[in-house]
């Protein structure tokens, strides 16, 4: 069995967000690009599954839609341990376009597989690629997955629901849309991994993108909050009264 991990190239979490071109573009000047945090957890879990030989995972492949600028991030995934990577060379215009391109690639793969996709990307917060991909492929999907184990030809998952969790069984191929908990800590590339990553295959294929269904324009920064009102530690009563009478939330 093969595991595919979908990877988004996103600005580092600590990036100070700015917009340029009269607020029509995200200003990426000086931005550090990283593996989307949820995808990083997905990749970590994929490596754990491969390392346990009982799971019969023979390969972990990373899939990305994007330009040449995504390759340092892809190399980082190879350094963490993925066996190889595929970059579908196209502009990731919206979730629909990305999911379509991923599905076209996966349709050509004939063996049994699991796709792991992070539940969200920290740039445009669409939470859509994994679900859209599964529908394009017409395969089952399980979302909000916080644990995943391979049991023979089935996969056992823990799905988080509001107010609890469910144990779900799925067959392959299928798409797991994963969240926190799927792996404890994201793996950090070791020096040996970084050296090896240089020689690992990174295939680039040309993508024929469909028309996007939605488009983004006019970015805005959030309004600046008024300064915090400070209350002395011994005046708990004053705080409660402010919450009651000023904020009117109690």
């Amino acid at each position, binding site marked *: 069995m093969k595991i595919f991990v979908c990877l988004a190239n996103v600005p580092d979490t600590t990036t100070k967000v700015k917009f340029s071109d009269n607020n029509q573009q*995200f200003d990426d000047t000086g931005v550090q690009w990283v593996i989307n945090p949820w995808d990083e957890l997905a990749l970590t879990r994929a490596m754990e599954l491969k390392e346990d030989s009982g799971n019969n995972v023979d390969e972990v492949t990373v899939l990305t839609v994007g330009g040449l600028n995504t390759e340092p991030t892809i190399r980082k995934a190879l350094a963490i341990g993925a066996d190889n990577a595929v970059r579908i060379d196209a502009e990731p215009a919206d979730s629909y376009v990305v999911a379509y391109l991923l599905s076209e690639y996966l349709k050509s793969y004939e063996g049994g597989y699991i796709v792991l996709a992070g539940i969200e990307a920290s740039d445009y*917060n669409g*939470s859509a690629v994994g679900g859209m991909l599964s529908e394009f492929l017409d395969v089952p999907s399980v979302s909000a997955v916080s644990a995943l184990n391979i049991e023979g030809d089935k996969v056992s998952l823990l799905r988080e629901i509001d107010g609890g969790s469910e144990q779900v069984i799925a067959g392959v191929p299928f798409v797991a849309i994963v969240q926190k*908990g799927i792996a404890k800590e994201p793996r950090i590339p070791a020096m040996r991994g970084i050296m090896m990553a240089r020689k690992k295959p990174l295939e680039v294929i040309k993508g024929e993108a469909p028309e996007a269904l*939605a488009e983004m324009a006019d970015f805005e920064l959030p309004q600046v909050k008024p300064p915090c009102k400070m209350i002395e530690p011994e005046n*708990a009563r004053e705080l409660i009264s402010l919450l009651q009478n000023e904020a009117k939330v109690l």
Partner: protein
Amino acid sequence: MSVLVFAESWDGRFKKSSFELVSYARAMAESEGTQTVVLSIGRVEKDELIKLGKYGADKIISVSSEDFKGLDNQVYTRLITEVSEKEDAAIIVLAHNNTGKALAPRLSVRLKAGLVSAAVSLPVSYSPFVLTKKVFTGKGFVHQTIKTDRKIVSLAANSFELKETNSSPEIIDYSPETNAGEGGTSISDVQKQSGKLILTDADIVVSGGRGMKSADNWGPIEELADLLGAATACSRPVSDEGWRPHHEHTGQTGKIIAPNLYIAAGISGAIQHLAGVSSSKYIVAINTDKDAPIFEAADYGIVGDALKVLPELIEAVKEMKA
């Protein structure tokens, strides 16, 4: 034409987010001069279904068959597709929670309908159809335009006020054509947090961080939460340490919440934590370090040891209630 809402229920009761969705869809339907249709999947009694009318449902389609009890993303997608075609839905509205995140993208592909996820308000305009959504985990907003005739919107939690209208809805007990047996997944076990307020549904959240110093010190957090009818939450280090369960972790990779009031006790406010809570209407911060970033996000702050301040807050709330 119609605006279709998928209203989720839990143990036969609708979630608060479901009522918010109905209010939201109603406002859209009024602007578009059409009706609000609500789809409920799972066994829900009539007196509960009728509550949807209070928030503006004109028509309720109830699929109560036990066959559709467990969520299978493919089966639910087919079922919602079936109903949206039958009702000629121009706009389909779901909650941006785990279920909505699972279904909205699949629907978007199946119906070839553009999706805006985590919308924060009503459309800025209907033609073109433009919505505002958050990007960069709350560090920005963007206007997103859907270019297709049919639209799908998932609404961010607590971003639309409940609005009572009192329509008397028509209730239809619906037997779908969609085959419940054609899903590729099955649920083998369900664990519920009984009697607890659902974190993403709560109006008030009391949350503890590393400043609480140990798992044994959570008593005051729970007591304050009980007094205020609040849910409890925590920061990432706390759940990583195992002091509190993972489902309480709020922050970028944990739960994203937007309560009316968020009380952060002993939380310094790392950027990843703020990403999960910055949409709260009011934030109260209690922290020993006056330079902690949480005070930049907070509306009210106390510089002090949460372990000493919380008991005083509890006393003050008791006095307020007396």
